[in-house]
């Protein structure tokens, strides 16, 4: 464990040796977070993967070309230019396969990824024999490496990341349209193909500047993971973009810092793990779409349905007991409830336990049950509101049925007291319309 002082120095960017590396991965994370969001929404996350693999032949060939031109081949901008060109070639191949064959996106991506990468590895092996090849650290483009960075390299990365981020924010509306409904966008006269290519161009830019520090296998995590994590927290685009940028930035900053503090920890891998941790937290706990909140909501929904089913069934049993007279709260047989519903004995026990906890039941003698006074009121209320909704759907409904929440409380809030009054009149007047649809199962009351 490095001393606290060192940790502070690295994290606060006071350490000159690591400042550039940490800053560059942070900026990379921000840019990738922004652009990756569009990629995710366009359902093309893995295209980044194919793209990053497709950059390898460019790196090898650029090196060979620079050496044959008499240089050392170590120039980062030169290598990155080669990477960009072969990445673009990869994109074009993908688009061409998709547009001229029946093969799907995934095949096009897999093809470009494997064939370009194969060519890359083959050409890398060839140029290994050139002087200075191992010194240029070409292999580090595959796995990434934490090297101390020259200022000019840093500037290159910073400028590319900054420009890419700005473009993606400036074209927010256009990209949104493209991701949401490209057919509509092109019908509206937007140049969707150009936008698509621009988006993939931005992806290429981010991938290429991430190659050296993160490596081509892991750089796509930068594009995918923060965006997917952000998606759990919000249903809106701009917050998602910003959150994704923040998660990407934090991953880059923390990951590179941790890697700088610990020997033998490759930066790319640590960054990926930080991002994955943030993703896991988001996936499990994000209130909007997280797994646990959703499980919790589903359980609550089930409970709510059970509760309503129980109260309504109880009220209907009482109704049939009253046989046309005013409904009174009297004890009745549990078996009559079971006739109405498909509860297993275990479920029924649980439902009754909940009901007792809510004081809806007075006593449960052997096989008998009596609603408490509040329970009886609640049962009447649930039944009434359910039937009001039914009546509303029959007579007025112009809303999607799926928006109807038959739970009691909201009837008046949603429909307004006046309309509810009107509906009640329908219920009271049997001639106007049958109060409840004549369903084939009058007791269960559809």
């Amino acid at each position, binding site marked *: 464990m490095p001393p606290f002082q060192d940790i502070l120095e690295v994290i606060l960017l006071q350490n000159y040796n690591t400042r550039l590396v940490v800053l560059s991965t942070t900026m990379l994370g921000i840019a990738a977070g922004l652009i990756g969001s569009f990629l995710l929404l366009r*359902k*093309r*996350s*893995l295209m980044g*993967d194919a793209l990053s693999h497709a950059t390898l032949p460019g790196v090898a060939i650029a090196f*060979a070309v620079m050496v044959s031109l008499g240089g050392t081949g170590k120039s980062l901008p030169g290598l990155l230019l080669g990477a960009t060109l072969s990445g673009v070639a990869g994109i074009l191949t993908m688009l*061409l*396969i998709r*547009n*001229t*064959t*029946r*093969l*799907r996106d*995934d*095949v096009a*991506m*897999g*093809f470009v*990824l*494997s*064939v370009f*990468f*194969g*060519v*890359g*590895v*083959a*050409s*890398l*092996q*060839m*140029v290994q*024999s050139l002087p200075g090849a191992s010194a240029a650290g070409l*292999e580090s483009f*595959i*796995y990434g490496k934490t090297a101390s960075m020259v200022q000019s390299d840093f500037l290159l990365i910073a400028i590319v990341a900054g420009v890419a981020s700005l473009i993606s924010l400036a074209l927010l509306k256009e990209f949104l349209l493209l991701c949401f409904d490209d057919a509509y966008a*092109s019908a509206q006269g937007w140049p969707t193909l150009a936008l698509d290519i621009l988006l993939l161009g931005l992806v290429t830019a981010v991938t290429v500047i991430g190659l050296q520090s993160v490596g081509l*296998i*892991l750089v*796509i*995590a930068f594009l*995918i*993971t923060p*965006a*997917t994590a952000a*998606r*759990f927290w919000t249903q809106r685009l701009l917050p998602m973009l910003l959150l994704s940028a923040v998660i990407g930035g934090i991953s880059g900053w923390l990951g590179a810092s941790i890697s700088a503090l610990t020997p*033998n*920890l*490759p930066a*790319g*891998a640590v960054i*990926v*793990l930080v991002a*994955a941790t943030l*993703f896991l937290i988001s*996936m499990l706990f994000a209130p909007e*779409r997280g*797994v646990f909140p959703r499980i919790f909501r589903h359980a609550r929904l089930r409970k709510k349905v059970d509760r309503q089913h129980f109260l309504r069934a109880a009220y209907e049993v009482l109704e049939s007991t009253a046989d046309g007279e005013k409904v009174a709260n009297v004890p009745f047989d549990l078996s009559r409830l079971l006739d109405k519903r498909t509860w297993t004995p275990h479920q029924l026990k649980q439902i009754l336990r909940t009901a007792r906890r809510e004081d809806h039941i007075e006593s449960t003698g052997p096989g008998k049950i009596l609603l408490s006074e509040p329970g009886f009121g609640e049962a009447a209320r649930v039944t009434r509101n359910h039937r009001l909704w039914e009546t509303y759907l029959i007579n007025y409904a112009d809303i999607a049925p799926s928006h109807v929440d038959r739970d009691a409380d909201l009837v008046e809030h949603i429909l307004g007291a006046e309309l509810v009054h009107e509906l009640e009149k329908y219920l009271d007047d049997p001639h106007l319309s049958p109060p409840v649809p004549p369903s084939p199962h009058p007791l269960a009351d559809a």
Partner: protein
Amino acid sequence: MNWTSFDTWIVVIGALCAMACALPGCFLVLRKMSMMGDAISHAVLPGLAIAFLITGTRASVPMFFGAAIAGVLTALFTQWISRFGNVDRGAAMGIVFTTLFAIGLIMIRQAADNVDLDPGCVLYGAIELTPLDTVGSTGIPRAALVNGGVLLANLVIILVLFKEFKLGAFDSALADTLGFSSQFLHYLLMTMVAVTTVAAFESVGSIIVIAMLIVPPATALLLTRKLPAMLLIATVTAALSALLGHLGAIIVPPWFGFQTTTTSGMIALAAGVLFTLAWLFSPIEGILVKRWHRNHSEPEEVPEPGGA
């Protein structure tokens, strides 16, 4: 060119491995899960590393199981994330395999001082050296036996369960309603892919695996509209890629003034070339053939090439 029995063995091993991949690859492609091959082949790294760190040897058996388990876990985690998290399957796959790969990379680097395990060997393999490692006195390279065994296993499974795989890939809901669990078929396929990947990585590297899982089946899909024919063409294309790839590895580098290159990379390239030929000249799907039809016959309902 100086062709030796050594080269023959390299081609045989490459072909066995390529064919072993192409068979399950056909169903990956049909299930629109081509990228799963890439994901699994990267994600086996931590499995290899853990098996190595626990047993301390590069003995094949523990490493084999470690990696195969990691491969199946990739499929499992991807499924979970995409189902429970409501995440696009591609994104889920990307997250899972980069995370697993990162874990593997860190484990290997941490143990780098006392470990002779290089992530590079997973990628490139060393197909050129495989003929040296023979089994007993038979003179048959171990890699040939391993990959041949996997090929045989894949072939048997696919022949025996041909109709189930076909049904599961075509209409998984029908498979479920008829009582053939589509989940079971999915994980069986994933296990086949993982085992094939692991068997191949040691001898020939994962590049061949990724390429052979996807490219020969895609080539076959361009050439036929029948499933048995697709499997056959994919297998033949895979074997042909191995042969052409090795020839290319010998012939091509001198053109550029280099000595040699990896056979693995060249096999992937050869598969790409075969795909391109099918793309251009396939009698049913080829770009040129379609264009010729458009110019020489009444308009057909061929989709506009190059359009949107």
